[in-house]
């Protein structure tokens, strides 16, 4: 009946221990720890998302806890607008902002190779430079191989421009490296969160729950199903919807590539494929999703309340959104113009943009999905 129903007794021992062994917090992390102590004494936001229940399982907030909570936060803004301690209150609680600052640092801290973590510092520049470099590469290659940017008579056959194996090798290698890099990063993140975790039996069910939370973007629903906040305290489902367009659009494009690869190697059916073929249909559907989604997210991002999240992160968010949009747009333009003399130019541009995307996957906003999924998995595990 009294306050003994606080589910934190397991943490008791930890709180009493001295803190000598706990790694020092940097300024951003210390700010999260300070705010979490206030939230933990308040708890009004418990219903919004997974962050607050995870917080109530703790009495103290060490570095690993803070990295975990920061990546669990979806920056929905609900807890900022409902906080009676938000600025101008002297407690100055702005959880989404404090979390976002730490989150950006964690991407850099866990990045592999470590030196590349710096690419997060000025991420808008990183993405722009990568894009420019990749575009130049493919344009120069085109000129080198064709002597001009508008060669005639290719009839939509881009393998006449770039041999299939060259493309497969280039993109395969870069994509493979990016996956490896992301994998190592998230593994380091995970090991830091749950050293020697032994929750083995709960894993399948927790994975299922976390997977569901990722695929449905559960925590962009505000806890009441009406969505997250954007310009003010009003809730909207559009961020979730545009995010779905983006994510599923991306997956459809990915599926298009996978099907085409199967056609190529298993059925011995090389591209180009007719518009009504499965790979092209998947690509068109995905491409449209990847136009609507990023365009909508950008519009929301531009109107976002200035106190939401971390202003330093805006260039990263926007550069990534724009790159995704351009990848999709260039793909659709390529499809439309593939039987004209514009084939070579549009192909070079599309390939350049895709290459830039692959290259920056582990060093840009893309990583948020991976780290967030890991944090959601951890939250599902520990809530069991």
């Amino acid at each position, binding site marked *: *009946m009294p*306050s003994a*129903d*606080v589910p934190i007794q397991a943490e*008791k021992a930890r709180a*009493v221990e001295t803190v000598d062994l706990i790694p020092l917090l940097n300024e951003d992390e210390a700010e999260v720890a300070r705010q979490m102590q206030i939230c933990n*004494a308040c*708890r009004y936001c418990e219903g919004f998302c997974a962050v607050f229940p995870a917080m109530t399982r703790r009495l103290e907030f060490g570095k690993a806890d803070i990295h975990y909570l920061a990546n669990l936060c979806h920056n929905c803004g609900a807890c900022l*607008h409902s906080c009676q301690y938000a600025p101008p209150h002297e407690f100055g609680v702005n959880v989404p902002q404090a979390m976002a600052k730490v989150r950006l640092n964690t991407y850099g801290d866990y990045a592999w190779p470590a030196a590349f973590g710096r690419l997060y510092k000025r991420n808008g520049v990183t993405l722009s430079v990568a894009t420019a470099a990749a575009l130049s590469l493919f344009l120069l290659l085109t000129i080198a191989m064709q002597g001009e940017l508008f060669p005639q008579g290719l009839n939509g056959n881009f393998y006449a421009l770039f041999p299939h194996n060259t493309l497969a090798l280039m993109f395969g290698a870069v994509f493979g490296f990016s996956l490896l890099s992301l994998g190592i990063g998230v593994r380091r993140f995970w090991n830091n969160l749950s050293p020697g975790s032994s929750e083995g039996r709960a894993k399948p069910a927790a994975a299922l729950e976390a997977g569901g939370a990722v695929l449905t973007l559960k925590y962009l629903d505000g806890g*009441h199903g009406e969505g997250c906040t954007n310009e003010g305290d009003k809730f909207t489902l559009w961020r979730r919807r545009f995010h779905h367009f983006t994510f599923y659009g991306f997956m459809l494009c990915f599926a298009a590539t996978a099907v085409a690869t199967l056609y190529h190697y298993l059925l011995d059916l090389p591209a180009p494929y007719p518009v009504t073929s499965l790979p092209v249909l998947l690509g068109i559907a995905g491409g449209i999703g990847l136009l609507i989604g990023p365009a909508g997210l950008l519009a929301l991002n531009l109107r976002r309340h200035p106190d939401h999240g971390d202003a330093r992160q805006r260039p990263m968010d926007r550069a990534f959104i724009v790159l995704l949009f351009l990848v999709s747009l260039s793909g659709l333009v390529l499809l439309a113009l593939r039987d004209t003399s514009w084939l070579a130019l549009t192909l070079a541009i599309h390939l350049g943009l895709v290459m830039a995307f692959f290259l920056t996957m582990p060093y840009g906003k893309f990583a948020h999905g991976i780290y967030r999924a890991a944090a959601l998995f951890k939250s599902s595990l520990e809530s069991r």
Partner: protein
Amino acid sequence: MIDVLVIGGGNAALCAALMAREAGASVMLLEASPRQWRGGNSQHTRNLRCMHEGPQDVLVDAYPEEEFWQDLLKVTGGATDEKLARLVIRASSKCRGWMRKHGVRFQPPLSGALHVARTNAFFMGGGKALINAYYRSAEQLGIQIRYDSPVEAIELHDGRFVAARVPARDLDGGRRPAERIEARSCVLAAGGFESNRDWLRDAWGQNERGEWAADNFLIRGTRFNTGVLLRDLLEQGADAIGDPTQAHMVAIDARAPLYDGGICTRIDCVSLGVVVNRDGERFYDEGEDFWPKRYAIWGRLVAGQPGQIGYSIIDSKAVGHFMPPVFPGEQAHSLDELARKLGLPEASFVQAIQAYNAACRLGTFDHTVLDDCHTEGLVPAKTHWARPIDTPPYFGYALRPGVTFTYLGLKTDDTAAVRFGGKPSPNLFVAGEMMAGNVLGQGYTAGVGMSIGTAFGRIAGVQAAAASRGAHSSHNRGKHHAIS
């Protein structure tokens, strides 16, 4: 001229404004605070006490009218008006659909508050989320909202509301001239006087030690409830209810800010340890009853101690058994070190703890029941959960009285009319903290402040809309009002 003027910007004011607007009136709402601080004490709340006959979305079991009434009767010691109390209780069972319509969302109890799962519906995101939802709805419905508009006086004519006066004030670098705002009817929902330091000082006076006790009180809620209108109305002859020295007071962390410390500054470990005063001496049974039933007496207890300060002392056995406090406590590895850190006289503090430790008769410690761990031969006794304070590190938290709200208010009836010499005003109504004393003359039970404010806010809104049309609000008296 607008139909209905609502003065205040918290729960009661918004309920009144929304209802009046829904009844077709044109409505203006004047909030004393700037936009960022809008919502008064209501922004700090977390739940609403609700009567219900069976399980209802976030509410488990049943909490019938009679039980709610008995609870209210008990906590007020009879200082309540049964008719008005029952009106509030019944309204609390029917208001949540309307609240949802205006965007308020409910959730099951917060962790650490499971003991009220049956009786209280929690606002998702707390009171500020509720306030935000009401303001959004008010804007959408075309209610004019004016922030930075503290009304200083009400113009009355024979008990009729004529106009409200807002003084000239500096705003955003510019000067806004004084205003006189007329309306056909008016709802007063401007809170109590808890943030009026001078008034508190007068009400509490000087104690036998020559201290002005109220000077050491902290205010848990808004700084804008200065009671200016309460005083103005009382001076103009409005009927009063309640005692100015009655206030809901809890013991909160002495480091809390002067205003708006809110919920998170409470210290929940009192029943797990002992509390001493600045002389290092215990002064009350810390284990008298479950903490949720006792937390509201500790404000007054601390207010009665020299310097209006107390110190909650626990050892490491208690850690993790109570809601984590907002500020870390002083921590020490010995009792005399703790005394030094807290600025307490070492010898008498250590002696008091040792005497307590020696008097502890350990049974089976269980914080979820009134267990059999108690003291023997100690004055004052600790009757439950008494365990020696002997396992370092030790922790100490300084406590101050934290005022939640005051009880002095305007007398009213079931039409929410302000009364002058026993006669109801035809067009001036009152709701929320400003009249809560009609139902809650003293004491408190969690969530009832919002039940009163919501019920009377809604009644006042309907009555004010009717009065603005020239309808005889007295016509409805005694019948049930147009609230559903």
